[in-house]
Protein backbone atom coordinates (compact mmCIF):
# COMPACT_ATOMS: atom_id res chain seq x y z
CA UNK A 1 0.00 0.00 0.00
CA UNK A 2 1.71 3.11 -1.12
CA UNK A 3 -0.31 6.14 -0.29
CA UNK A 4 1.93 8.76 -1.84
CA UNK A 5 0.99 7.75 -5.36
CA UNK A 6 -2.04 9.99 -5.72
CA UNK A 7 -0.23 13.12 -4.72
CA UNK A 8 2.77 12.59 -6.89
CA UNK A 9 0.50 11.47 -9.71
CA UNK A 10 -1.75 14.51 -9.66
CA UNK A 11 1.04 16.88 -8.81
CA UNK A 12 2.94 15.81 -11.88
CA UNK A 13 1.16 18.23 -14.20
CA UNK A 14 3.85 20.81 -13.82
CA UNK A 15 2.92 23.01 -16.75
CA UNK A 16 -0.27 24.06 -14.99
CA UNK A 17 -0.42 27.06 -12.67
CA UNK A 18 -0.53 25.97 -9.07
CA UNK A 19 -3.87 27.64 -8.44
CA UNK A 20 -5.50 25.60 -11.20
CA UNK A 21 -3.89 22.27 -10.43
CA UNK A 22 -6.49 21.34 -7.85
CA UNK A 23 -9.41 21.71 -10.20
CA UNK A 24 -7.67 20.79 -13.43
CA UNK A 25 -9.28 17.34 -13.64
CA UNK A 26 -12.70 19.00 -13.34
CA UNK A 27 -11.95 21.33 -16.23
CA UNK A 28 -10.93 18.34 -18.32
CA UNK A 29 -13.94 16.27 -17.33
CA UNK A 30 -16.67 18.82 -18.00
CA UNK A 31 -16.46 18.91 -21.81
CA UNK A 32 -16.23 15.12 -21.91
CA UNK A 33 -19.41 14.85 -19.85
CA UNK A 34 -21.22 17.35 -22.04
CA UNK A 35 -20.31 15.36 -25.15
CA UNK A 36 -21.57 12.20 -23.45
CA UNK A 37 -24.81 13.97 -22.61
CA UNK A 38 -25.24 15.00 -26.22
CA UNK A 39 -24.51 11.49 -27.51
CA UNK A 40 -27.09 9.94 -25.21
CA UNK A 41 -29.78 12.56 -25.59
CA UNK A 42 -31.91 10.22 -27.70
CA UNK A 43 -31.54 7.00 -25.77
CA UNK A 44 -33.53 7.23 -22.56
CA UNK A 45 -32.90 3.64 -21.51
CA UNK A 46 -29.14 3.95 -21.79
CA UNK A 47 -29.31 7.21 -19.89
CA UNK A 48 -31.38 5.61 -17.17
CA UNK A 49 -29.07 2.63 -16.85
CA UNK A 50 -26.02 4.88 -16.78
CA UNK A 51 -27.63 7.01 -14.09
CA UNK A 52 -28.40 3.99 -11.91
CA UNK A 53 -24.87 2.80 -12.40
CA UNK A 54 -23.50 6.22 -11.52
CA UNK A 55 -25.55 6.38 -8.32
CA UNK A 56 -24.23 2.96 -7.34
CA UNK A 57 -20.66 4.02 -8.06
CA UNK A 58 -21.05 7.12 -5.90
CA UNK A 59 -22.48 4.99 -3.10
CA UNK A 60 -19.79 2.33 -3.32
CA UNK A 61 -16.86 4.73 -3.62
CA UNK A 62 -18.09 6.83 -0.71
CA UNK A 63 -18.74 3.81 1.51
CA UNK A 64 -15.25 2.58 0.67
CA UNK A 65 -13.83 5.65 2.41
CA UNK A 66 -15.32 4.41 5.69
CA UNK A 67 -15.41 0.62 5.31
CA UNK A 68 -12.33 0.28 3.15
CA UNK A 69 -9.82 2.97 3.99
CA UNK A 70 -10.73 3.50 7.64
CA UNK A 71 -11.62 -0.11 8.40
CA UNK A 72 -14.91 0.70 10.09
CA UNK A 73 -18.06 -1.22 9.33
CA UNK A 74 -21.06 0.85 8.34
CA UNK A 75 -24.09 -1.04 7.06
CA UNK A 76 -26.61 1.77 6.80
CA UNK A 77 -25.48 3.65 3.74
CA UNK A 78 -28.96 3.47 2.20
CA UNK A 79 -30.20 5.47 5.18
CA UNK A 80 -27.98 8.41 4.26
CA UNK A 81 -28.98 7.97 0.66
CA UNK A 82 -32.60 8.25 1.79
CA UNK A 83 -31.92 11.43 3.73
CA UNK A 84 -30.36 12.94 0.62
CA UNK A 85 -33.11 11.72 -1.69
CA UNK A 86 -35.97 13.04 0.41
CA UNK A 87 -34.39 16.35 1.34
CA UNK A 88 -33.31 17.02 -2.23
CA UNK A 89 -36.73 15.92 -3.47
CA UNK A 90 -38.59 18.17 -1.07
CA UNK A 91 -36.30 21.06 -1.94
CA UNK A 92 -36.95 20.59 -5.64
CA UNK A 93 -40.69 20.37 -5.09
CA UNK A 94 -40.58 23.61 -3.13
CA UNK A 95 -38.60 25.33 -5.86
CA UNK A 96 -40.67 23.87 -8.67
CA UNK A 97 -42.39 27.11 -9.64
CA UNK A 98 -39.38 29.33 -9.29
CA UNK A 99 -37.39 30.01 -12.42
CA UNK A 100 -34.28 31.90 -13.28
CA UNK A 101 -35.77 33.77 -16.22
CA UNK A 102 -32.46 35.15 -17.40
CA UNK A 103 -31.15 31.66 -18.05
CA UNK A 104 -32.23 29.08 -20.61
CA UNK A 105 -34.56 26.52 -19.05
CA UNK A 106 -32.08 23.67 -19.32
CA UNK A 107 -29.41 25.63 -17.47
CA UNK A 108 -31.79 26.97 -14.85
CA UNK A 109 -32.97 23.39 -14.21
CA UNK A 110 -29.43 22.29 -13.53
CA UNK A 111 -28.84 25.18 -11.17
CA UNK A 112 -31.87 24.20 -9.11
CA UNK A 113 -30.82 20.58 -9.26
CA UNK A 114 -27.45 21.46 -7.78
CA UNK A 115 -29.16 23.46 -5.03
CA UNK A 116 -31.39 20.50 -4.23
CA UNK A 117 -28.48 18.07 -4.33
CA UNK A 118 -26.46 20.19 -1.95
CA UNK A 119 -29.45 20.39 0.38
CA UNK A 120 -29.64 16.60 0.32
CA UNK A 121 -25.89 16.09 0.62
CA UNK A 122 -25.46 18.50 3.49
CA UNK A 123 -28.43 17.04 5.38
CA UNK A 124 -26.96 13.58 4.97
CA UNK A 125 -23.55 14.84 6.11
CA UNK A 126 -25.17 16.34 9.18
CA UNK A 127 -26.96 13.07 9.86
CA UNK A 128 -23.60 11.34 9.40
CA UNK A 129 -22.06 13.63 11.98
CA UNK A 130 -24.83 12.99 14.51
CA UNK A 131 -24.72 9.23 13.98
CA UNK A 132 -20.94 9.04 13.74
CA UNK A 133 -19.84 11.15 16.67
CA UNK A 134 -21.21 8.95 19.45
CA UNK A 135 -20.69 5.58 17.75
CA UNK A 136 -17.23 6.16 16.29
CA UNK A 137 -15.84 7.01 19.71
CA UNK A 138 -16.25 3.37 20.55
CA UNK A 139 -14.25 0.65 18.97
CA UNK A 140 -15.53 -2.44 17.30
CA UNK A 141 -18.94 -3.24 16.02
CA UNK A 142 -20.93 -0.40 17.52
CA UNK A 143 -20.94 1.46 14.23
CA UNK A 144 -22.50 -1.49 12.44
CA UNK A 145 -25.28 -1.72 14.99
CA UNK A 146 -25.92 2.02 15.06
CA UNK A 147 -25.91 2.46 11.29
CA UNK A 148 -28.19 -0.52 10.91
CA UNK A 149 -30.58 1.10 13.37
CA UNK A 150 -30.25 4.46 11.68
CA UNK A 151 -31.29 3.04 8.30
CA UNK A 152 -34.42 1.55 9.83
CA UNK A 153 -35.25 4.69 11.82
CA UNK A 154 -35.09 6.81 8.68
CA UNK A 155 -37.49 4.42 6.98
CA UNK A 156 -39.91 4.60 9.87
CA UNK A 157 -39.69 8.39 10.02
CA UNK A 158 -40.31 8.73 6.29
CA UNK A 159 -43.18 6.28 6.35
CA UNK A 160 -44.89 8.38 8.99
CA UNK A 161 -44.22 11.86 7.67
CA UNK A 162 -46.82 13.52 5.50
CA UNK A 163 -44.29 15.82 3.82
CA UNK A 164 -42.35 12.80 2.59
CA UNK A 165 -45.43 11.09 1.17
CA UNK A 166 -45.51 8.34 3.79
CA UNK A 167 -45.38 4.79 2.44
CA UNK A 168 -46.73 5.88 -0.93
CA UNK A 169 -43.64 7.88 -1.63
CA UNK A 170 -42.78 11.20 -3.10
CA UNK A 171 -43.74 11.79 -6.71
CA UNK A 172 -43.71 14.76 -9.02
CA UNK A 173 -40.11 15.64 -8.35
CA UNK A 174 -38.87 17.38 -11.50
CA UNK A 175 -36.90 14.86 -13.56
CA UNK A 176 -34.03 17.20 -14.15
CA UNK A 177 -31.15 14.83 -13.64
CA UNK A 178 -28.88 14.42 -16.64
CA UNK A 179 -26.12 12.05 -17.61
CA UNK A 180 -23.65 14.92 -17.41
CA UNK A 181 -24.75 15.77 -13.87
CA UNK A 182 -24.51 12.22 -12.51
CA UNK A 183 -21.25 11.81 -14.37
CA UNK A 184 -19.92 14.95 -12.74
CA UNK A 185 -20.66 13.66 -9.24
CA UNK A 186 -19.13 10.27 -10.02
CA UNK A 187 -16.08 12.09 -11.16
CA UNK A 188 -16.05 14.26 -8.05
CA UNK A 189 -16.40 11.41 -5.55
CA UNK A 190 -13.62 9.48 -7.24
CA UNK A 191 -11.38 12.54 -7.25
CA UNK A 192 -12.07 13.23 -3.59
CA UNK A 193 -11.53 9.61 -2.64
CA UNK A 194 -8.24 9.36 -4.48
CA UNK A 195 -6.96 12.63 -3.11
CA UNK A 196 -7.84 11.62 0.42
CA UNK A 197 -6.10 8.30 -0.11
CA UNK A 198 -2.94 10.03 -1.25
CA UNK A 199 -2.81 12.67 1.45
CA UNK A 200 -1.68 12.63 5.04
CA UNK A 201 -5.35 12.42 6.01
CA UNK A 202 -5.71 9.22 4.06
CA UNK A 203 -2.54 7.91 5.65
CA UNK A 204 -4.06 8.49 9.06
CA UNK A 205 -7.19 6.63 7.94
CA UNK A 206 -5.10 3.67 6.76
CA UNK A 207 -3.26 3.77 10.08
CA UNK A 208 -6.57 3.59 11.95
CA UNK A 209 -7.58 0.64 9.82
CA UNK A 210 -4.30 -1.11 10.57
CA UNK A 211 -4.09 -0.49 14.31
CA UNK A 212 -6.27 1.97 16.13
CA UNK A 213 -4.37 1.81 19.42
CA UNK A 214 -1.05 2.47 17.73
CA UNK A 215 -2.50 5.28 15.62
CA UNK A 216 -3.85 6.98 18.72
CA UNK A 217 -0.49 6.55 20.46
CA UNK A 218 1.22 8.20 17.49
CA UNK A 219 -0.88 11.31 17.92
CA UNK A 220 -3.67 10.54 15.47
CA UNK A 221 -6.99 11.80 16.76
CA UNK A 222 -8.71 8.59 15.75
CA UNK A 223 -12.24 9.63 16.64
CA UNK A 224 -11.85 12.91 14.77
CA UNK A 225 -10.54 11.23 11.65
CA UNK A 226 -13.20 8.56 11.70
CA UNK A 227 -15.96 11.12 12.09
CA UNK A 228 -14.62 13.28 9.27
CA UNK A 229 -14.33 10.28 6.96
CA UNK A 230 -17.86 9.29 7.91
CA UNK A 231 -19.22 12.79 7.28
CA UNK A 232 -17.65 12.96 3.81
CA UNK A 233 -18.95 9.50 3.03
CA UNK A 234 -22.46 10.43 4.18
CA UNK A 235 -22.37 13.61 2.14
CA UNK A 236 -21.83 11.67 -1.07
CA UNK A 237 -24.44 9.10 -0.13
CA UNK A 238 -26.84 12.03 0.21
CA UNK A 239 -25.81 13.34 -3.20
CA UNK A 240 -26.38 9.89 -4.69
CA UNK A 241 -29.85 9.83 -3.15
CA UNK A 242 -30.57 13.32 -4.45
CA UNK A 243 -29.59 12.36 -7.98
CA UNK A 244 -31.66 9.19 -7.73
CA UNK A 245 -34.71 11.23 -6.72
CA UNK A 246 -34.37 13.30 -9.88
CA UNK A 247 -34.47 10.53 -12.45
CA UNK A 248 -36.87 7.96 -11.03
CA UNK A 249 -40.57 8.79 -11.22
CA UNK A 250 -41.19 8.13 -7.54
CA UNK A 251 -39.15 7.56 -4.42
CA UNK A 252 -40.57 5.55 -1.53
CA UNK A 253 -39.15 3.92 1.57
CA UNK A 254 -38.85 0.66 -0.38
CA UNK A 255 -35.95 2.10 -2.36
CA UNK A 256 -33.78 2.52 0.72
CA UNK A 257 -34.07 -0.74 2.58
CA UNK A 258 -31.45 -2.81 4.33
CA UNK A 259 -31.16 -4.77 1.08
CA UNK A 260 -29.89 -1.63 -0.63
CA UNK A 261 -27.38 -1.06 2.16
CA UNK A 262 -26.14 -4.62 1.84
CA UNK A 263 -25.88 -4.23 -1.91
CA UNK A 264 -23.47 -1.33 -1.39
CA UNK A 265 -21.47 -3.26 1.20
CA UNK A 266 -21.19 -6.18 -1.23
CA UNK A 267 -19.91 -3.81 -3.91
CA UNK A 268 -17.19 -2.50 -1.62
CA UNK A 269 -16.18 -5.94 -0.39
CA UNK A 270 -16.24 -7.39 -3.90
CA UNK A 271 -14.05 -4.62 -5.25
CA UNK A 272 -11.64 -4.94 -2.35
CA UNK A 273 -11.89 -3.00 0.89
CA UNK A 274 -9.80 0.08 0.34
CA UNK A 275 -9.70 0.11 -3.45
CA UNK A 276 -11.51 2.98 -5.14
CA UNK A 277 -11.31 1.52 -8.61
CA UNK A 278 -12.36 -1.84 -7.17
CA UNK A 279 -15.51 -0.24 -5.82
CA UNK A 280 -16.22 1.26 -9.26
CA UNK A 281 -15.74 -2.01 -11.10
CA UNK A 282 -17.89 -3.89 -8.58
CA UNK A 283 -20.62 -1.24 -8.74
CA UNK A 284 -20.73 -1.43 -12.53
CA UNK A 285 -20.81 -5.21 -12.44
CA UNK A 286 -23.54 -5.45 -9.82
CA UNK A 287 -25.65 -2.85 -11.63
CA UNK A 288 -25.44 -4.67 -14.93
CA UNK A 289 -25.88 -8.17 -13.52
CA UNK A 290 -29.58 -7.90 -12.67
CA UNK A 291 -30.24 -6.03 -15.90
CA UNK A 292 -28.48 -8.72 -17.87
CA UNK A 293 -30.43 -11.46 -16.05
CA UNK A 294 -33.66 -9.61 -16.65
CA UNK A 295 -33.12 -9.26 -20.38
CA UNK A 296 -31.85 -12.81 -20.61
CA UNK A 297 -35.03 -14.11 -18.99
CA UNK A 298 -37.11 -11.82 -21.15
CA UNK A 299 -35.41 -13.13 -24.25
CA UNK A 300 -35.97 -16.81 -23.41
CA UNK A 301 -39.61 -16.64 -22.67
CA UNK A 302 -41.62 -13.49 -22.56
CA UNK A 303 -42.76 -14.51 -19.08
CA UNK A 304 -42.70 -11.21 -17.31
CA UNK A 305 -42.93 -12.95 -13.93
CA UNK A 306 -39.53 -14.50 -14.39
CA UNK A 307 -38.00 -11.14 -15.18
CA UNK A 308 -39.65 -9.70 -12.11
CA UNK A 309 -38.22 -12.44 -9.98
CA UNK A 310 -34.75 -11.13 -10.62
CA UNK A 311 -35.41 -8.49 -8.04
CA UNK A 312 -36.46 -11.06 -5.51
CA UNK A 313 -33.49 -13.35 -5.95
CA UNK A 314 -31.11 -10.43 -5.61
CA UNK A 315 -30.46 -10.81 -1.92
CA UNK A 316 -29.68 -14.54 -1.97
CA UNK A 317 -27.42 -13.92 -4.96
CA UNK A 318 -25.54 -11.23 -3.06
CA UNK A 319 -25.26 -13.50 -0.06
CA UNK A 320 -23.91 -16.31 -2.18
CA UNK A 321 -21.50 -13.95 -3.88
CA UNK A 322 -20.21 -12.78 -0.52
CA UNK A 323 -19.70 -16.32 0.75
CA UNK A 324 -17.89 -17.43 -2.39
CA UNK A 325 -15.77 -14.30 -2.25
CA UNK A 326 -14.85 -14.73 1.40
CA UNK A 327 -13.79 -18.30 0.73
CA UNK A 328 -11.89 -17.78 -2.49
CA UNK A 329 -10.62 -14.22 -2.39
CA UNK A 330 -11.27 -12.54 0.98
CA UNK A 331 -9.40 -9.39 0.01
CA UNK A 332 -11.81 -8.77 -2.88
CA UNK A 333 -10.94 -8.26 -6.53
CA UNK A 334 -8.19 -5.70 -6.06
CA UNK A 335 -7.41 -5.88 -2.34
CA UNK A 336 -6.29 -2.43 -1.31
CA UNK A 337 -4.70 -1.77 -4.67
CA UNK A 338 -5.99 0.27 -7.57
CA UNK A 339 -6.75 -0.89 -11.08
CA UNK A 340 -3.51 0.43 -12.54
CA UNK A 341 -1.46 -1.34 -9.89
CA UNK A 342 -3.20 -4.65 -10.51
CA UNK A 343 -3.65 -4.83 -14.27
CA UNK A 344 0.06 -5.08 -15.16
CA UNK A 345 0.27 -8.25 -13.12
CA UNK A 346 -2.60 -9.87 -14.98
CA UNK A 347 -1.08 -9.26 -18.37
CA UNK A 348 1.47 -11.98 -19.06
CA UNK A 349 4.92 -10.48 -19.23
CA UNK A 350 6.57 -10.24 -22.59
CA UNK A 351 9.86 -11.92 -23.09
CA UNK A 352 12.93 -9.82 -22.92
CA UNK A 353 14.16 -8.44 -26.19
CA UNK A 354 10.74 -7.95 -27.65
Amino acid sequence: MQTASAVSGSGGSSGVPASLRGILPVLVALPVLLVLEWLLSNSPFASYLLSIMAVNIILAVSLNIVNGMTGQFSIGHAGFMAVGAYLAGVTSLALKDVALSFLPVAVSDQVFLVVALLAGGISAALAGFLVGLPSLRLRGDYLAIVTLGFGEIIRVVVTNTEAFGRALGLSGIPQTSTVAMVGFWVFLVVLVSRRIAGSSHGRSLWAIREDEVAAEAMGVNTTGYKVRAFVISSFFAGIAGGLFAHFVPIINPGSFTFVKSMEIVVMVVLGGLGSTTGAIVAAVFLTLLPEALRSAFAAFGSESTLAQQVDQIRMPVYGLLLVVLMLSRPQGLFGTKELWEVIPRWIPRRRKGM
Partner: protein
Amino acid sequence: MSGPLLEAVGVSIQFGGLKALSDFNLAIHKGDLQGLIGPNGAGKTTAFNVLTGVYQPTQGEVRVSGLRVNGRLPHQINHLGLARTFQNIRLFRALTALDNVKVACRGQAALHVEGVGPGAKFRGALRNYRDWWRALMLTPGFLAEERELTRQAEHLLEVMGLSHRRDEEARNLPYGEQRRLEIARALGTRPKVLLLDEPAAGMNTREKADLMVLIRKLRDEFDLGILVIEHDMKLVMGICEKITVLDHGETIARGAPAEVRSDRKVIEAYLGDSYLESHGGAA
Protein backbone atom coordinates in the same frame (compact mmCIF):
# COMPACT_ATOMS: atom_id res chain seq x y z
CA MET B 1 16.93 23.28 36.22
CA SER B 2 13.35 22.89 35.07
CA GLY B 3 10.91 20.35 36.47
CA PRO B 4 10.49 16.81 35.22
CA LEU B 5 9.10 16.26 31.71
CA LEU B 6 7.22 13.19 32.83
CA GLU B 7 6.04 12.55 36.33
CA ALA B 8 3.95 9.89 38.04
CA VAL B 9 2.80 10.63 41.56
CA GLY B 10 1.30 7.84 43.63
CA VAL B 11 -0.22 6.15 40.60
CA SER B 12 -2.25 3.00 41.17
CA ILE B 13 -4.41 1.00 38.84
CA GLN B 14 -6.67 -1.87 39.58
CA PHE B 15 -8.07 -4.47 37.18
CA GLY B 16 -10.96 -6.04 39.04
CA GLY B 17 -9.32 -7.60 42.07
CA LEU B 18 -5.80 -7.29 40.71
CA LYS B 19 -3.73 -4.31 41.72
CA ALA B 20 -1.50 -4.16 38.67
CA LEU B 21 0.31 -1.05 39.86
CA SER B 22 0.35 0.50 43.31
CA ASP B 23 1.72 3.82 44.45
CA PHE B 24 3.99 4.14 41.46
CA ASN B 25 6.26 7.18 41.41
CA LEU B 26 8.53 8.31 38.65
CA ALA B 27 10.22 11.45 37.36
CA ILE B 28 11.95 11.72 34.01
CA HIS B 29 13.97 14.81 33.21
CA LYS B 30 15.45 15.96 29.97
CA GLY B 31 18.48 13.81 29.18
CA ASP B 32 17.55 11.03 31.60
CA LEU B 33 18.02 7.44 30.56
CA GLN B 34 16.18 5.28 33.05
CA GLY B 35 15.23 1.65 33.18
CA LEU B 36 12.12 -0.14 34.38
CA ILE B 37 12.58 -3.81 35.19
CA GLY B 38 10.81 -6.60 36.97
CA PRO B 39 9.59 -10.18 36.46
CA ASN B 40 6.85 -11.08 33.99
CA GLY B 41 3.54 -9.62 35.01
CA ALA B 42 5.14 -7.10 37.35
CA GLY B 43 3.18 -4.23 35.81
CA LYS B 44 5.81 -2.61 33.60
CA THR B 45 3.72 -2.42 30.45
CA THR B 46 0.75 -1.41 32.56
CA ALA B 47 2.82 1.50 33.84
CA PHE B 48 3.46 2.58 30.24
CA ASN B 49 -0.22 2.27 29.45
CA VAL B 50 -1.15 4.47 32.37
CA LEU B 51 1.49 7.06 31.54
CA THR B 52 0.36 7.29 27.91
CA GLY B 53 -3.34 7.48 28.67
CA VAL B 54 -4.36 4.03 27.40
CA TYR B 55 -5.57 3.26 30.93
CA GLN B 56 -6.80 5.72 33.52
CA PRO B 57 -5.16 5.47 36.94
CA THR B 58 -7.55 4.60 39.76
CA GLN B 59 -5.43 6.78 42.02
CA GLY B 60 -2.66 9.29 41.67
CA GLU B 61 -1.62 11.69 39.01
CA VAL B 62 0.37 11.67 35.78
CA ARG B 63 1.98 14.92 34.65
CA VAL B 64 3.60 15.73 31.35
CA SER B 65 5.68 18.90 31.40
CA GLY B 66 4.01 19.73 34.69
CA LEU B 67 0.52 19.41 33.20
CA ARG B 68 -1.89 16.95 34.76
CA VAL B 69 -2.98 14.55 32.01
CA ASN B 70 -5.37 12.24 33.84
CA GLY B 71 -8.42 11.80 31.65
CA ARG B 72 -6.78 12.98 28.47
CA LEU B 73 -6.78 10.82 25.38
CA PRO B 74 -3.58 9.07 24.25
CA HIS B 75 -3.20 11.25 21.16
CA GLN B 76 -3.48 14.40 23.27
CA ILE B 77 -0.83 13.13 25.65
CA ASN B 78 1.33 12.28 22.66
CA HIS B 79 0.95 15.86 21.44
CA LEU B 80 2.30 17.04 24.78
CA GLY B 81 5.53 15.21 24.04
CA LEU B 82 5.23 11.61 25.16
CA ALA B 83 5.80 8.79 22.67
CA ARG B 84 6.14 5.06 23.07
CA THR B 85 6.85 1.77 21.37
CA PHE B 86 4.96 -1.46 21.96
CA GLN B 87 6.17 -4.69 23.45
CA ASN B 88 4.13 -6.71 20.96
CA ILE B 89 5.10 -4.68 17.88
CA ARG B 90 2.13 -2.66 16.63
CA LEU B 91 3.24 -1.24 13.32
CA PHE B 92 0.80 -0.29 10.57
CA ARG B 93 1.57 -3.55 8.89
CA ALA B 94 0.30 -2.90 5.39
CA LEU B 95 1.86 0.55 5.17
CA THR B 96 5.38 1.11 3.92
CA ALA B 97 8.14 1.91 6.39
CA LEU B 98 8.12 5.49 5.18
CA ASP B 99 4.36 5.86 5.58
CA ASN B 100 4.52 4.40 9.08
CA VAL B 101 6.77 7.25 10.09
CA LYS B 102 4.83 9.83 8.10
CA VAL B 103 1.65 9.01 9.99
CA ALA B 104 3.45 9.95 13.18
CA CYS B 105 4.97 13.10 11.69
CA ARG B 106 1.51 14.11 10.58
CA GLY B 107 0.19 13.86 14.11
CA GLN B 108 2.77 16.40 15.11
CA ALA B 109 1.96 18.71 12.21
CA ALA B 110 -1.63 18.84 13.43
CA LEU B 111 -0.50 19.78 16.91
CA HIS B 112 -1.17 23.49 16.59
CA VAL B 113 -4.80 22.61 15.98
CA GLU B 114 -5.55 21.79 19.58
CA GLY B 115 -5.17 25.01 21.49
CA VAL B 116 -6.72 25.88 24.81
CA GLY B 117 -9.30 28.37 25.96
CA PRO B 118 -12.89 29.03 24.93
CA GLY B 119 -13.75 28.27 21.32
CA ALA B 120 -10.54 26.32 20.83
CA LYS B 121 -12.43 23.17 20.09
CA PHE B 122 -14.56 24.87 17.49
CA ARG B 123 -11.59 26.60 15.89
CA GLY B 124 -9.78 23.30 15.91
CA ALA B 125 -12.65 21.60 14.12
CA LEU B 126 -12.85 24.36 11.51
CA ARG B 127 -9.13 24.15 10.98
CA ASN B 128 -9.34 20.40 10.56
CA TYR B 129 -11.94 20.67 7.82
CA ARG B 130 -9.90 23.41 6.19
CA ASP B 131 -6.91 21.06 6.26
CA TRP B 132 -8.93 18.44 4.43
CA TRP B 133 -10.04 21.02 1.92
CA ARG B 134 -6.43 21.97 1.27
CA ALA B 135 -5.63 18.33 0.63
CA LEU B 136 -8.56 17.98 -1.76
CA MET B 137 -7.59 21.10 -3.68
CA LEU B 138 -3.89 20.20 -3.70
CA THR B 139 -2.91 23.70 -2.65
CA PRO B 140 0.79 24.56 -2.96
CA GLY B 141 0.99 24.86 0.82
CA PHE B 142 -0.39 21.37 1.19
CA LEU B 143 2.03 19.90 -1.32
CA ALA B 144 4.95 21.62 0.36
CA GLU B 145 3.83 20.19 3.69
CA GLU B 146 3.69 16.69 2.21
CA ARG B 147 7.21 17.04 0.89
CA GLU B 148 8.38 18.24 4.28
CA LEU B 149 6.75 15.22 5.96
CA THR B 150 8.51 12.91 3.54
CA ARG B 151 11.81 14.61 4.23
CA GLN B 152 11.38 14.32 8.00
CA ALA B 153 10.38 10.68 7.76
CA GLU B 154 13.27 9.84 5.47
CA HIS B 155 15.64 11.45 7.94
CA LEU B 156 14.28 9.35 10.80
CA LEU B 157 14.56 6.17 8.74
CA GLU B 158 18.17 7.07 8.11
CA VAL B 159 18.84 7.68 11.80
CA MET B 160 17.44 4.25 12.60
CA GLY B 161 19.36 2.62 9.76
CA LEU B 162 16.25 1.76 7.78
CA SER B 163 16.67 3.82 4.62
CA HIS B 164 16.99 0.68 2.53
CA ARG B 165 13.50 -0.39 3.68
CA ARG B 166 11.81 2.89 2.77
CA ASP B 167 9.19 1.48 0.41
CA GLU B 168 8.75 -1.93 1.93
CA GLU B 169 5.61 -2.87 3.79
CA ALA B 170 6.25 -2.93 7.51
CA ARG B 171 5.04 -6.53 7.84
CA ASN B 172 7.79 -7.72 5.51
CA LEU B 173 10.62 -6.34 7.62
CA PRO B 174 12.70 -8.67 9.77
CA TYR B 175 11.93 -8.60 13.46
CA GLY B 176 14.83 -6.45 14.58
CA GLU B 177 14.08 -3.87 11.92
CA GLN B 178 10.42 -3.78 12.91
CA ARG B 179 11.50 -2.86 16.42
CA ARG B 180 13.71 -0.10 15.07
CA LEU B 181 10.91 1.12 12.81
CA GLU B 182 8.71 1.41 15.88
CA ILE B 183 11.30 3.71 17.41
CA ALA B 184 11.56 5.75 14.20
CA ARG B 185 7.78 6.10 14.18
CA ALA B 186 7.70 7.20 17.81
CA LEU B 187 10.41 9.78 17.07
CA GLY B 188 8.22 11.09 14.24
CA THR B 189 5.89 12.58 16.81
CA ARG B 190 8.84 14.66 18.08
CA PRO B 191 8.60 13.54 21.69
CA LYS B 192 10.35 15.01 24.68
CA VAL B 193 10.13 11.70 26.48
CA LEU B 194 10.37 8.32 24.80
CA LEU B 195 9.09 5.12 26.40
CA LEU B 196 10.58 1.93 24.97
CA ASP B 197 8.86 -1.34 25.85
CA GLU B 198 11.38 -4.15 25.47
CA PRO B 199 13.07 -2.71 22.38
CA ALA B 200 15.62 -5.52 22.25
CA ALA B 201 13.21 -8.44 22.59
CA GLY B 202 13.86 -11.00 19.90
CA MET B 203 17.12 -9.39 18.77
CA ASN B 204 20.39 -11.25 18.56
CA THR B 205 23.45 -10.25 20.58
CA ARG B 206 24.93 -8.04 17.90
CA GLU B 207 21.68 -6.23 17.25
CA LYS B 208 21.33 -5.68 20.98
CA ALA B 209 24.78 -4.16 21.22
CA ASP B 210 24.02 -1.84 18.31
CA LEU B 211 20.73 -0.90 19.90
CA MET B 212 22.43 0.11 23.12
CA VAL B 213 24.65 2.52 21.25
CA LEU B 214 21.69 3.77 19.27
CA ILE B 215 19.51 4.47 22.30
CA ARG B 216 22.27 6.55 23.86
CA LYS B 217 22.75 8.39 20.61
CA LEU B 218 19.03 9.16 20.37
CA ARG B 219 19.00 10.56 23.88
CA ASP B 220 21.88 12.89 23.04
CA GLU B 221 20.88 13.88 19.52
CA PHE B 222 17.18 14.41 20.15
CA ASP B 223 17.57 15.75 23.68
CA LEU B 224 15.17 13.15 25.01
CA GLY B 225 14.32 11.69 28.32
CA ILE B 226 14.11 7.92 27.84
CA LEU B 227 12.54 5.17 29.93
CA VAL B 228 13.31 1.60 28.86
CA ILE B 229 11.61 -1.61 29.87
CA GLU B 230 13.99 -4.43 29.24
CA HIS B 231 14.64 -7.95 30.45
CA ASP B 232 18.19 -8.05 29.18
CA MET B 233 20.18 -7.09 32.28
CA LYS B 234 23.34 -6.40 30.34
CA LEU B 235 21.53 -3.85 28.22
CA VAL B 236 19.69 -2.18 31.09
CA MET B 237 22.66 -2.07 33.43
CA GLY B 238 24.84 -0.92 30.56
CA ILE B 239 22.95 2.16 29.50
CA CYS B 240 20.62 3.21 32.31
CA GLU B 241 21.64 5.70 34.94
CA LYS B 242 18.73 4.90 37.19
CA ILE B 243 16.60 1.82 37.44
CA THR B 244 13.18 1.21 38.96
CA VAL B 245 12.28 -2.34 39.89
CA LEU B 246 8.67 -3.49 39.98
CA ASP B 247 7.25 -6.65 41.46
CA HIS B 248 3.54 -7.40 41.64
CA GLY B 249 2.88 -3.74 40.94
CA GLU B 250 4.99 -2.57 43.87
CA THR B 251 8.17 -0.58 43.48
CA ILE B 252 10.68 -2.70 45.36
CA ALA B 253 13.85 -0.80 44.55
CA ARG B 254 15.17 2.23 42.77
CA GLY B 255 18.65 3.55 42.18
CA ALA B 256 21.83 3.31 40.15
CA PRO B 257 22.50 -0.04 38.42
CA ALA B 258 25.10 -1.07 41.01
CA GLU B 259 22.73 -0.43 43.90
CA VAL B 260 19.84 -2.24 42.31
CA ARG B 261 21.99 -5.15 41.34
CA SER B 262 23.05 -5.76 44.90
CA ASP B 263 19.63 -5.20 46.44
CA ARG B 264 18.47 -8.25 48.37
CA LYS B 265 14.80 -7.88 47.41
CA VAL B 266 15.60 -7.44 43.75
CA ILE B 267 17.74 -10.53 43.68
CA GLU B 268 15.05 -12.57 45.37
CA ALA B 269 12.19 -11.33 43.25
CA TYR B 270 13.77 -10.99 39.88
CA LEU B 271 17.42 -11.61 39.30
CA GLY B 272 17.27 -14.90 41.11
CA ASP B 273 19.93 -17.24 42.44
CA SER B 274 21.20 -18.10 39.01
CA TYR B 275 22.08 -14.46 38.53
CA LEU B 276 23.94 -14.44 41.83
CA GLU B 277 25.89 -17.53 40.91
CA SER B 278 26.95 -16.30 37.52
CA HIS B 279 27.97 -12.95 38.91
CA GLY B 280 29.85 -14.27 41.88
CA GLY B 281 27.46 -12.95 44.54
CA ALA B 282 26.43 -9.40 45.12
CA ALA B 283 25.76 -9.06 48.81
